[in-house]
């Protein structure tokens, strides 16, 4: 939900400095004389921060809410608590059990709800949280009920409080580093894509549902880790430490610090653990302090949606040195549309009815390999519905769709991308918080990309080549939200090209472009077909269609009214009538006669 505030420390130097800093912090925690009070505060802050970083993953990176973070924290804590006491197991084994339980339960909970979206997820996680509290309190033979679990053991060698704290700090540093690097992994990019634009993510080839479940499970896992460490740190746990109220505390910490980065998680956690200690008097009135948390949540969401780190990071980014200019991007290689046995696209008897409305009524057409095929028709003729059927956003009422000879009729959008369908959107759908390069890398990562990209370097090289092809290589590392409308369109095309599609669907690429941009678009389309790409274009701009299309299919009232060679189709009286209007008005008959097709309408 918040833009990622800062770049990953790519350079080795940064990573080493970070490691040295973490080690120093751990050594200081182990060596400095700490009071018991200070030790407790630091222990709590460190273990909580691990759990809050879990929210950075699920809420910050993937945009999914989880209001049961304290429950997963509790699962980790009880695994260590009960394991080292009642069951007499080794600390590390218990910690592993807790992590496994959090991961599995998180994944299962996510799997049950993540298809349905936000509201359901929020309520189901709250419910899960309440159930866990009920179980912890009432299942006394196992959980020991409200009395809690005392006497929790630490691992051998870390029995000393400060040494254990030093270990927790190292664990936190490792987790923060992993999550800091995560946005630039394949999974991390997929999560950001899902957060920014679920629909586009699916069409580009990201398995949206699977990505969300993974994010949710990883978030739960980190909560379990934080909880396990917490149990070892305090030696005593009880159900009231893992209630819904604590989940809200975790959420507030994440939001306050900035949900987009683990740095924000650490800042938010530290602030909200230290502040109440400084304002201890508030704890004398029960409720006051949580009431302020609630108020803080509302105020942060309204006035500072990116949190402290998001706010600070955006300002720091201005002073950061520009990244070194990359080497010249290579030439974009597209697999040629070989004259295979199958057409690139085959549509047979395709129909979509909404109630009684036949938006698409049994249409047939085929797109041959190579060249530009245009699908046109007056407003409301069923073009957009057809496009949504092709990319899997609608389920057809009847008919089949074959791409490259494979029947994709029942496949979800990301699976169609894997078969080789690329598309752009009329109202541009980019991943708005990401750079142009990252947008295009997500496209290059489409499953079964024939370009066969083995490693991160090849992936980036291909993305840069695709950006160079549309003329944006110099702006590759800029956030795409700062691009002009015309350039955003080009990034969207580059994103699709990077995936090397068998068929590229362009949904009104000329919409909103000015005259010179349209000329540039025409040239770009020609360069794309020169590389052997097959394009299906939908546009109202008949000048563009005339200029680029080899073949045209015309729809009206959901039916196909013409199909074939472009010049011939545009001369058909039915097509001219569909565009200029039927000669139907009685009062207008005289005028209409004056408007019969003219010779100058024929293509030059």
């Amino acid at each position, binding site marked *: 939900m918040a833009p990622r505030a800062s770049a990953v420390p790519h350079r080795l130097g940064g990573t080493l400095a970070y490691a040295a800093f973490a080690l120093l912090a751990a050594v200081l925690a182990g060596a400095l004389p700490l009071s018991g009070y200070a030790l407790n505060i630091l222990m709590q802050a460190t273990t909580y921060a691990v759990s809050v970083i879990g929210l950075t993953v699920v809420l910050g990176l993937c945009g999914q809410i989880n209001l049961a973070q304290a429950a997963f924290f509790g699962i980790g804590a009880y695994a260590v608590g009960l394991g080292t006491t009642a069951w007499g197991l080794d600390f590390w084994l218990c910690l592993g059990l807790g992590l496994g339980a959090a991961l599995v339960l998180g994944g299962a909970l996510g799997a049950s709800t993540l298809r349905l979206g936000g509201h359901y997820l929020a309520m189901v996680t709250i419910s899960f949280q309440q159930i866990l509290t009920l179980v912890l309190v009432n299942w006394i033979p196992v959980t020991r009920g409200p009395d809690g679990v005392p006497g929790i053991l630490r691992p051998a060698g870390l029995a000393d409080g400060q040494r254990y704290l030093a270990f927790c700090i190292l664990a936190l540093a490792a987790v923060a580093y992993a999550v800091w690097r995560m946005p630039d992994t394949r999974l991390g990019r997929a999560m950001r894509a899902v957060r920014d634009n679920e629909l586009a993510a699916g069409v580009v080839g990201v398995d949206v549902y699977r990505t969300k479940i993974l994010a949710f499970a990883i978030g739960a896992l980190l909560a379990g880790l934080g909880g396990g460490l917490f149990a070892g740190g305090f030696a005593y746990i009880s159900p009231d430490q893992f209630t819904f109220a604590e989940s809200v505390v975790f959420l507030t910490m994440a939001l306050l610090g900035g949900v987009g980065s683990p740095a924000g998680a650490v800042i938010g956690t530290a602030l909200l653990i230290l502040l109440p200690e400084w304002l201890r008097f508030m704890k004398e009135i029960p409720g006051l302090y949580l009431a302020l948390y609630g108020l803080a949540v509302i105020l942060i969401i309204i006035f500072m949606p990116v949190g402290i780190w998001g706010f600070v990071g955006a300002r720091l980014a201005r002073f950061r040195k520009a990244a070194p200019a990359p080497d010249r991007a290579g030439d974009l290689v597209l697999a040629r549309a070989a004259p295979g046995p199958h057409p690139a696209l085959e549509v047979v008897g395709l129909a979509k009815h909404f109630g009684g409305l036949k938006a698409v009524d049994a249409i047939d057409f085929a797109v041959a390999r190579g060249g530009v095929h245009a699908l046109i028709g007056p407003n409301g003729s069923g073009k957009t519905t057809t496009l949504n059927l092709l990319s899997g956003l609608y389920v057809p009422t009847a008919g089949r769709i074959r791409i490259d000879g494979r029947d994709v009729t029942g496949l979800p959008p990301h699976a169609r991308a894997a078969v080789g369908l690329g598309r752009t959107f009329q109202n541009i759908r980019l991943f708005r918080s990401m750079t142009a390069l990252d947008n295009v890398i997500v496209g290059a990562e489409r499953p079964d990309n024939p370009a066969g990209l083995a490693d991160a370097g090849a992936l980036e090289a291909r993305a840069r080549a695709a950006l160079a092809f549309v003329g944006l290589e110099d702006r590759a590392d800029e956030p795409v939200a700062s691009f002009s409308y015309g350039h955003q369109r080009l990034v969207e095309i580059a994103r699709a090209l990077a995936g090397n599609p068998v068929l590229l669907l362009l949904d009104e690429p000329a919409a909103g472009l000015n005259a010179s941009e349209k000329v540039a678009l025409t040239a770009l389309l020609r360069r794309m077909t020169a590389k052997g790409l097959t394009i299906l274009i939908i546009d109202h701009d008949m*000048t563009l269609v005339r200029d680029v299309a080899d073949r045209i299919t015309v729809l009206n009232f959901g039916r196909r009214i013409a199909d074939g060679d472009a010049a011939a189709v545009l001369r058909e009286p039915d097509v001219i009538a569909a565009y*200029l209007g039927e000669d139907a008005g009685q009062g207008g008959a005289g005028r209409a006669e*004056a408007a019969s097709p003219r010779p100058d309408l024929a293509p030059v």
Partner: protein
Amino acid sequence: MALLELRDLSVSYGEVRAVEGLSLTVEPGEVVTLLGSNGAGKSTTLKAISGLVRPRAGQILFEGRSLMGCRPEEIVRRGVAHVPEGRRVFPGLTARENIMLGASNRSGLSKRQIRAEADAMFELFPDIARFGDALGWTLSGGQLQMVALARGLMAKPRLLLLDEPSLGLAPVIVQAVFRIIAEVRRRGTTVFLIEQNARMGLSVADRGYVLESGRLALSGTPEALWANDDISAAYLGGSRAVSAAG
């Protein structure tokens, strides 16, 4: 004084300049049509007039007074009714209820009065008289357009804005819709009409304007516009090709 006057109107969506420096007038009692291909900025112009989008620059005057900065509710109360593209009939309300809500801009009417007026509307729209109690989502495209028109008229507007009333309708239905527009005009309501169906639009209009890429390309009487080759080019493309050839 013109009933409606646009002066140098410019509207942007973010960076996209949908309308650039558009000036036009609509005199009382006229039917004026605004033509142009999809994406030319026609709907945006209507939305700016009715307050749904905020212009970037320019002036909109209705009866000599500015409409700039007014909310849609205020603008319809001042007598400008907008029948938007896609009809936007409330799917969960009946045709009669939809029509009755058209009077929401007029105060001091009892429910009974409004209902009586709505029933009187069915005389102008005999085709939907039988469907008064049918829910919006069950109606066909032509019926929806009739309901949307009737709902717009219930506002007793001095200016009626119509956005593509022929959209997606079969020719025989389009004829019926345009007969009603002619009747509305005969009863004294000024109409500002957007059409992609240029033939139909010009058949009822006194004057027409043609938009291309957000700018005014042509204006004049229907006869003059038809006599100009550019109107075909604006719809079917080729303007660049034509100018290049010439």
